[in-house]
Each structure stands twice: as structure tokens, then as C-alpha cells.
């Protein structure tokens, strides 16, 4: 058994954390939404086409599983790191093994989300015309695109979570705050530069012409960059 697989198994030594809870949270959220929207009739909203979701009946509750992956990412390199390293692996191997687990998990869960979206369309929003597994623009296309977008989104959030744990371990609370502030600063500087160069129309064009697939591609690039950077950052972390 390769060491990377051993690290992945280490995280799964108590399976419910990674395999069950995400879906438990989502299932609960789904049940609540279903109950609420079953009470609100869709009748008075104009229905554009059979099978589409009337305005106002999209929920954003799918975010719960994405947030959960962020939490899993933080946890995986937080509380689980010291004992993982005590089992005789380098930080590099631990990180890569954890990333491997995250990738497989994101792939499987993304597929499940895509399938649920297909069923939702087929049942006309679970019989009450809600858009739980469909999100306009982001997750509203063919099932394979939904799978890809979900996969990238979940993986990105997991890696982002890992970053926070690593930063916290290396530089403490102040470091973590600085890390967040740095990100905000980067965005701010970018906005200032664009304003100074009067480039907002160009930016607007770019984003309006960006398809969901294009956005997914961008996020994938970001995820890979974070992944590589995370491995470099964890190398000097001490436990």
C-alpha cells in the first residue's frame, strides 16, 4: 500500500467525518428547504418552460456542502497533522496524501451532486419546483459540466482550508489575520489598478462572456496553484 494511500486511510480511520457528515448536513438542509417550499405554492410565478425553475425558487443551500469541505480542509491539516507526522511520514507526503483524499472525495461527491441535479430536473424540482441542486449560471448546465464544476469547487475549498491551517500553525493567529488581510489587499490593489487604467468595461466584458466552463477552468488553475503553494508552505511547519 503506497504511503499516500496510507495517509488517506489515516484520515478515514473514523469514516463518518469525511464520508457521512457532509451528506448528513446536506440532507438536513434539503429536507428543510423541501418542507418550506412545499408550503409556498409555485402557482403564481410564471413558468417559462417545463422543468425549469421559476424565479425565486432557487435555494443557495447547496453552499453547505461547499462550506463543509472548507471545514474538512482546515481540520485535515490542523488537528490531524501532529499524529500523522508522528506515524513516520514527511510533511510533503502527508500533504500530498491528504490532497489525494480530497481529490477523490471531491470527484465522488461532485458526481453525486450532478446525479441529484439530473433527478431534480427529471422530477421537476422534486415535485415542488425548487432549484436545490441547480444554481443559475454555475450549476445549471449538462450533468458532466455540473460534475466538473462541483469537483473543482469542492477541491478548491478543501485546499483553501488546508492553507488556513498551515498558516495558523506556522505563524499563529496574527499570521492568519495577516494572511486574510493580504488577500483582501490583493483584491483591493487589483480593483484600484483597473480603475486607474479605466478598464472596468474590459473586465465587465470578460466576466459576461465567461461561461460556467470557463469559470471552472479559472478556478481549477487557482486550485492547482494553491495546492502547489501549500506543499511548499507546509515544509517548515513544526508540530
Amino acid at each position: 500500500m503506497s504511503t499516500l494511500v496510507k495517509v488517506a486511510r489515516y484520515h478515514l480511520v473514523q469514516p463518518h467525518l469525511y464520508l457521512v457528515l457532509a451528506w448528513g448536513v446536506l440532507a438536513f438542509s434539503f429536507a428543510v428547504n423541501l418542507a418550506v417550499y412545499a408550503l409556498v405554492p409555485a402557482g403564481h410565478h410564471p413558468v417559462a418552460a417545463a422543468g425549469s425553475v421559476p424565479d425565486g425558487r432557487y435555494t443557495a443551500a447547496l453552499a453547505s456542502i461547499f462550506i463543509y469541505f472548507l471545514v474538512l480542509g482546515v481540520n485535515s491539516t490542523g488537528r490531524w497533522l501532529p499524529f500523522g507526522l508522528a506515524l513516520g511520514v514527511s510533511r510533503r507526503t502527508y500533504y500530498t496524501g491528504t490532497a489525494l483524499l480530497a481529490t477523490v472525495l471531491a470527484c465522488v461527491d461532485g458526481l453525486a451532486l450532478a446525479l441529484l441535479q439530473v433527478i431534480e430536473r427529471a422530477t421537476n424540482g422534486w415535485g415542488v419546483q425548487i432549484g436545490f441542486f441547480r444554481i443559475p449560471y454555475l450549476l445549471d448546465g449538462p450533468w458532466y459540466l455540473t460534475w466538473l464544476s462541483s469537483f473543482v469547487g469542492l477541491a478548491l475549498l478543501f485546499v483553501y482550508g488546508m492553507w488556513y491551517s498551515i498558516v495558523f500553525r506556522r505563524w499563529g493567529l496574527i499570521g492568519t489575520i495577516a494572511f486574510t488581510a493580504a488577500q483582501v489587499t490583493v483584491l483591493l490593489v487589483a480593483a484600484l489598478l483597473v480603475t486607474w487604467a479605466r478598464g472596468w468595461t474590459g473586465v465587465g466584458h470578460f466576466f459576461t462572456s465567461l461561461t460556467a466552463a470557463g469559470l471552472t477552468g479559472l478556478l481549477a488553475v487557482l486550485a492547482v496553484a494553491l495546492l502547489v503553494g501549500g506543499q511548499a508552505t507546509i515544509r517548515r511547519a513544526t508540530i
Partner: protein
Amino acid sequence: MTPVIAVDGLTRRYRDQVALDDVSFELAEGTITGLLGRNGAGKTTLLRILAGQEFPSSGSVRVLGAPPAENDAVLQRMVFVREDQAYPDIKVRHALRAASWFYPNWDADLARSVAADFDLRPDKAIKKLSRGLRSALGITIGLAARTEVTLFDEPYAGLDAVARQIFYDRLLADYAERPRTILLSTHLIDEASALFESVVVIDRGRVVLEAAADGLRGVATTVSGPALAVEDFTAGRAVWNRRRLGSQASVVAVGPLDEAARVRARSLGLDLAPLTLQQLVVHAASSPQAGEPETADPEGVSA
């Protein structure tokens, strides 16, 4: 034969202090060595660097022939049992199961048996264990891993005297069955002194004594009795530590005492007691020359 652990000029500096200062020593294969010293001497820092959990500021560290930091091949052949090991929110059996995957020589029967000795129940959540049982878990993993290099950093925190004796007995028994290189740091020196084949004493980040344990026994003797007789007997010998109370005196005489000297001491009515390892370490760590490395040799020790 290449030493299993070779440390040369190791220094570890933090922003406001030097934790290890030019530490050099070597450990041969298949020995049990005691790493002794006061609290804050640098024992834990040294062990963490050997285990690849900390990084040296300068100097070289080689375990099994290569630097241990970020080196999977070396780390897999080594286990580090530390007193403050942090575990995730899992149960004892999960920790043991995970360890069984990572250590190729893992002995599940030994793990079960050691855990039973310590009354460590597999289904308990680790975060709910008492300090002693957490130490017991660390010891269980450390022994059952049966790695070539085993590092212990005061592994018996919270263990009572009975449990500590279980640890020593189990350690020796498994070591006899499967020899390995063991480095055990402790400040309960006399209790563990029977285990050690060699000792390394660290004080304020420097090695102050590195010797075979056998060579140290008999290196100094406490001579006590009537003050004049003591003075007479120890004339011309190197001494540490003179103490006097009224007409009685107690002096630590350095150097081996042959049979003739012993007979003479008896005839003078003097009491001879060999210095224990603990007393020796206390002296080595607290003497004014504690800043300089001192290698004890059986022929005689300069005070």
C-alpha cells in the same frame, strides 16, 4: 560501523535563546542510551530534531545515515514517543490501527498486551484519557512499532511508579527479543539507570558528559566519617564537594579505589558509598565547568 545517530555541531537558535549549542555525539547500533539533564536543558529540542519535527539552525544530524527531516525513508524506520503528543478526536483503537499501517514491523499482539498491562481500553476516546493513559498509549505505539530507532522523550508523564516499572520491564523484554537503538530522555535518573548502556548529559544546550554507563559507576565515591580521617584518606586525590558538620565530614573522592584503599578506609573507620548516576549527573550539570564538554574515563576524572 556507521553510527545509527550521528550529530555534529548541532545548534538550534530561537529568537531570544540558544536551545542547543554545538552538540556532537554518536550512538552505535543496538544500544540503550539515556539522555539526561535538567528541565530546559535541551533534551526535547534535540529529540525533536532527531525525529525531523524541528529543524537545526546549523550543524549536521544524521539518523541511519541520512538527515531525518522530510526524509520518508528514514522516518519510517524511526518512532518518536513524546510526552505531549497531540492526537485527533479519535479512539485508542483508531490510533493503534493507523499505526499498524505505517510501521512495517508493527506487532499487533504486543500492542494488545502492552495496552492491557496499562489498563488502556481500546474504545476510549483519546481526548478523554488521563495524562497517564495518554502516556501509556504513546508507549504502546512506541514499543509495538518495533522500529530500528526508538526515541522516547520523558514518555512516562503521569504514570505512577508501578506503571513506570511496567514500562521499563516491557522495554527491556522487547529490546532483548529484538535489539534496536533506543534513546530515552528522563529526569528520573536513578530509576532508569539500570537500563542504560551509555549516557549523554546535556546542560544549557551543551553536552557536558558522554560516556558508557559502566565506566561511570565507580568513577567517584562518597567518603564520610571523622573529619581528620577523611582529610587523611583523601589527601592527594581529586575531590568534588566537601561537606563538614561538626567533627564529621563528607567528601566525594574522584577516581577508582583499589582494594588497598578500601581496606585503609575501613581501618580509619570511614564509610564508602559509590556515587549514583543521578548524583553524578547532578554534579556534571551543576558544576562550574558545566559549560565545557567532559568525557569521563575510568582512569580518572579531572574535577
